[in-house]
């Protein structure tokens, strides 16, 4: 699993670069690097469906980000300015929060099954019943379109909502 660790490190470095760099276009490319390394890690954990969807979604996300940045400005003027009072306050708050959150999180993550030993209580049933009862060979497709099809309807609705929302917010004038 050494390749997984390498990509995790790469992902974290790219994430820090994306947040701290001044050129917004470079930040978006680093965002793309994070997204694509997530896609590759999906392949390492045997999730080809996820990898395909993550790649296409990542391409689209980067295209949308770049479209917005090209229509506005690609220099982050706030980097290098002196920190304001509220900012310093929020960094201090955030530091306290991180310490608290990490201790609680690590303690509770230890109570979970270790990495690589999924419990699979319900999932066993899906694997057993998937092909005979729904007829689909891809168990993930069986789950999203038959066993849990309502989630997929909801997902399609979320996308529909955001398309209508984008269309509503890109009107030329709001009021008559």
């Amino acid at each position, binding site marked *: 699993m050494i390749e997984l660790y390498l990509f995790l490190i790469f992902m974290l470095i790219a994430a820090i670069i994306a947040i701290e760099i001044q050129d917004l276009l470079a930040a978006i490319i680093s965002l793309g690097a994070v997204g694509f390394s997530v896609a590759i890690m999906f392949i390492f954990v045997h999730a080809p469906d996820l*990898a395909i*969807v993550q790649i296409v979604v990542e391409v689209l996300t980067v295209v949308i980000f770049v479209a917005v940045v090209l229509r506005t400005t690609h220099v982050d003027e706030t980097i290098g300015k002196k920190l304001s009072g509220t900012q310093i306050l929020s960094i201090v708050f955030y530091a306290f929060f991180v310490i608290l959150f990490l201790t609680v999180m690590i303690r509770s993550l230890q109570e979970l099954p270790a990495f690589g030993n999924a419990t699979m209580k319900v999932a066993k049933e899906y694997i057993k019943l998937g092909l005979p009862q729904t007829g*689909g060979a*891809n168990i993930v*497709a069986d789950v999203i379109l038959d066993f849990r099809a309502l989630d997929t309807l909801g997902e*399609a609705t979320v996308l529909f909502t955001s*398309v209508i929302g*984008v*269309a509503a917010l*890109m009107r030329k004038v709001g009021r008559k």
Partner: protein
Amino acid sequence: MRGMSLIVKTITNSIIGFIFIYGLYIILHGHLTPGGGFAGGVIIAGAFVLKILAFGSGASAEKRSTTVASIFESVGALLFIGVAMSGLLLAGTFFLNFLPKGVPLHLLSAGIIPLCNIAISIKVGAGLFSIFLALAAMKYIVED
């Protein structure tokens, strides 16, 4: 000259069909191989995006494609919920897989799953294409 250079246009013309067929393959084999309605729909939307980026388009063409895309999106969503409702009306349960299951591992199998994949791909392709049009290509959507 609108759009990009002649080289880009020629290459676009020759590969756009392949992108389309690849998207269709991903959609139709969604119940057998990785992928499915969502990924295939995005790939087909990507083919249209490529065409617009390479050839450019006028304001009127963009307005027309927005209208068409929004109608297609509604139709795809209605198809999907129609599959669910026909489970309710024909067999008594919402989202019941009421079609025959067919031979496993063949293209025509799995009941409603391929139908759902097709509906999702229409919906997602049209929806993401109109997001792209609204955010990247057009200045604003003008209400009539």
